[in-house]
């Protein structure tokens, strides 16, 4: 009751204290408001500063959002969403060489090399950097040449440059010459093949060009020559026509009306002739030009010295020669016709002159006949007739004289003319001879060339046959050698085979013997293994028995130990457990766990023995009253008055004798009286451990009083624990979960 009163007093005291505190707090509320205001200000300043700093430093914002739970909501409200990672500088440099790479563009342009672009892009970077300042138009060519070079360098097969870049191949040749110094051995075959191919292509192209040019010039010259010949023939025709007309006009005795027509026709013929002659001359000049050009082309082609073109050249030369010959013939005809025309015209002029002379003489003699209109009657007077006859006689005499003179001069003239004619003939002969000689020379030369070409072909064919013969001979020889070698090898092989046969037989015998041996060994091994197995089984049996014996011994010793624990009587401790413990130690020498346990027994229990639970229980009951009496005494309350009060409390306070302890002790349960009732309950129910734990909670003088009892209880508990563990260990061993000597 006192305790209840005390508790009530305590409670009331506490309530009073609280009220006083509140009143005090109310009186100082004015000061507190200031403090509260200051605190609020500080807090808001902190938050504002945090927000501002988060706005400025994003890393700080991220850290705050990560660490403080709802800060991201607050910061988002204040500042807006967190900015993306745009401010961070790009760490990797993007190598954007595609638009700057002329090689790539060039390669994309040239389709045949497109598939190699990856290799090509990576490989020629150092030369590419050198070529970058070059203009793109040039760089494409360089790029293609680079491509051909690289492709050939990468692949072992020599790459033939595609037909689209033959110009590049030609330049490739040049660039290869530059690079030859660096890698002579590797690049040479490629370069040579490429060069040769390029050369061949060039030659073919040249030949083609040459043949086309030859054909063109031949065609043009032929055309021109034909035209010239045609013109010349037309001129010839015109000249002959004119001559005929002239002859007709002079010799024919036609009436005067038709004479004027004749003269007109003659004039027309003359005009025709001059026109035709002009045309002929123009055509001739054109033909000459064409022939000259053809000759120059032929000379150029001859200058190139290519064997394949020779027949073409020869044919062209022949054609040229023929054309020249024809042209000359026609020219000669025309010239002869012209000379004839000249003679005829001279003759006609002479005749006209004579006629005119006669007319003049007649007119001089008889002028009045001419001038007189009487003449028109056509009648002449006798005077006139007489004078005319006289004149005529005189004229006849004169003419006779002249004739005689003429006859004399005739011879001279004829001689002179003959001489002249001879000279002219000679000249003409010489000229014709020279032209004929030239022609013949040309023909001879052409024939010679033809013969040379034939001879060359023949020789080449002969050489080829010879080579073929040689090759055939070589193959025959090789075949023979191979045959012989084959025979030799066959003989060797047969020998080897025969040898190998013997070896085979030997190996077979050896194998058989080995097999027998192996079988025998196998049997022996199995027998041995069985023997070993049997021995092991026996040994393990022995070992198992030994183990069992040890376990039995351990059991006995543990049993003895636990039995010795029971020898405790009321107020007398057990016998000293030393001997039993020693027995246990002996029986489990090679078991560390058991040995450890055996050595874990407390010294006192070994020397003196432990008290039994019953004795402890009895002792506790006597203890209890003492503890109750000193419940209030501790280090601060220990005067005699306190003792008096404590005794009074013990006399007046009644608690349950035994009370079941709760699962968890609260502060109220730490009251000594409660603890004692719990401990008593535990002891009555055999739970020494819990009782000891509860008693351990006593403090102050009560604790000092129960100290010895607690020590004894501890000893007993320890010993019992060790013995229990040992028993369990032995059970474990017995059940075979563990070896004794582990």
């Amino acid at each position, binding site marked *: 009751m006192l305790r209840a009163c005390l508790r009530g007093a305590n409670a009331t005291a506490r309530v009073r204290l609280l009220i006083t505190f509140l009143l005090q707090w109310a009186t100082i509320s004015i000061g507190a408001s200031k403090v509260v205001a200051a605190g609020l200000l500080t807090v808001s300043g902190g938050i504002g500063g945090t927000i501002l700093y988060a706005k400025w430093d994003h890393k700080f914002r991220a850290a705050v959002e990560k660490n403080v739970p709802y800060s991201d909501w607050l910061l988002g409200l204040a500042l807006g969403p967190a900015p993306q990672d745009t401010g961070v500088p790009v760490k990797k440099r993007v190598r954007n060489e595609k638009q700057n790479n002329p090689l790539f563009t060039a390669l994309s342009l040239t389709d045949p090399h497109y598939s190699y672009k990856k290799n090509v892009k990576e490989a020629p970077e150092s030369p590419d950097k050198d070529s970058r300042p070059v203009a793109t138009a040039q760089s494409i060519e360089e790029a293609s040449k680079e491509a051909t070079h690289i492709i050939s360098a990468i692949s072992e097969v020599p790459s033939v440059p595609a037909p689209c870049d033959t110009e590049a191949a030609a330049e490739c040749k040049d660039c290869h010459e530059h690079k030859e110094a660096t890698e002579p051995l590797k690049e040479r075959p490629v370069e040579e093949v490429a060069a040769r191919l390029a050369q061949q292509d060039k030659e073919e192209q040249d030949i083609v060009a040459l043949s086309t040019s030859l054909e063109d010039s031949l065609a043009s010259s032929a055309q021109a020559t034909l035209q010239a010949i045609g013109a010349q023939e037309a001129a010839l025709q015109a000249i002959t026509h004119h001559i005929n007309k002239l002859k007709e006009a002079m010799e024919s005795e036609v009436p005067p009306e038709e004479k004027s027509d004749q003269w007109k026709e003659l004039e027309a013929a003359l005009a025709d002739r001059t026109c035709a002659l002009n045309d002929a001359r123009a055509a001739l000049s054109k033909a000459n030009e064409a022939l000259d050009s053809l000759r120059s082309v032929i000379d150029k082609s001859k200058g190139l010295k290519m064997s394949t073109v020779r027949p073409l050249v020869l044919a062209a030369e022949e054609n040229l020669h023929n054309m020249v010959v024809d042209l000359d013939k026609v020219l000669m005809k025309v010239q002869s016709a012209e000379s004839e025309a000249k003679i005829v015209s001279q003759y006609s002029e002479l005749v006209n002159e004579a006629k005119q002379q006669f007319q003049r003489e007649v007119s001089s003699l008889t002028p009045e006949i001419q001038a007189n209109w009487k003449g028109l009657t056509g009648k002449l007077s006798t005077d006139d007739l007489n004078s005319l006859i006289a004149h005529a006689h005189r004229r006849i005499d004169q003419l006779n004289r002249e004739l005689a003179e003429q006859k004399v001069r005739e011879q001279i003239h004829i001689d002179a003319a003959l001489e002249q004619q001879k000279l002219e003939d000679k000249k003409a002969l010489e000229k014709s001879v020279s032209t004929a000689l030239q022609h013949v020379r040309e023909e001879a030369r052409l024939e010679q060339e033809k013969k040379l070409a034939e001879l060359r072909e023949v020789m080449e064919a002969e050489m080829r046959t010879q080579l073929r013969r040689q090759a055939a001979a070589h193959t025959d020889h090789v075949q023979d050698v191979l045959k012989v070698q084959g025979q030799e090898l066959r003989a060797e092989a047969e020998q080897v085979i025969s040898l190998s046969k013997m070896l085979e037989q030997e190996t077979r015998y050896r194998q058989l013997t080995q097999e027998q041996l192996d079988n025998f060994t196998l049997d022996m091994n199995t027998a041995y293994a069985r023997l070993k197995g049997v021995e092991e089984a026996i040994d393990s049996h022995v070992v198992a028995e030994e183990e069992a014996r040890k376990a039995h011994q351990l059991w006995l010793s543990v049993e003895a130990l636990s039995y010795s624990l029971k020898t405790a009587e009321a107020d007398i401790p057990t016998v000293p457990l030393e001997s039993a413990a020693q027995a246990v130690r002996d029986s489990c020498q090679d078991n560390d766990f058991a040995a450890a346990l055996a050595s874990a027994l407390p010294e006192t229990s070994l020397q003196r023995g432990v008290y039994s639970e019953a004795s402890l229980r009895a002792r506790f009951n006597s203890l209890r009253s003492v503890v109750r009496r*000193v419940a209030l005494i*501790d280090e601060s309350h220990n005067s005699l008055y306190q003792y008096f009060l404590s005794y009074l409390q013990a006399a007046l306070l009644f608690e349950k004798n035994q009370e079941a302890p709760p699962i968890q002790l609260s*502060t109220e349960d730490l009251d000594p009286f409660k603890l004692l009732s719990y401990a008593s309950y535990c002891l009555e129910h055999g739970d020494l451990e819990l009782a000891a734990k509860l008693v351990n909670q006593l*403090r102050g003088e009560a604790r*000092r*009083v129960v100290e010895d009892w607690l020590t004894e209880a501890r000893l007993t508990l320890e010993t019992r624990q060790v013995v229990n563990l040992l028993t369990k260990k032995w059970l474990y061993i017995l059940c075979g979960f563990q070896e004794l000597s582990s």
Partner: protein
Amino acid sequence: MSEKELGKKWDRCLADGAIKLGTGLGLGIVFSVLFFKRHTWPISLGSGAGLGMAYANCQNDLRSHYILHRGDKVGLCMEKMNKML
């Protein structure tokens, strides 16, 4: 046995108290008879002194375990125990 300590202490207390009381009484009587003309006050003084001495001795004996001497070191758990109580 620690539980018997208290009993022993009480025994000592009582014995000592008896002795002192008796001695004080005796001395008081003696003094009263000899020097103070049979007043009672020396007797009561003496017995009172004797009783007081016995009380003090008993108290001292009972709290002797808790007396801290100069140079004693105290563990912190004592403070906890104080807080609990």
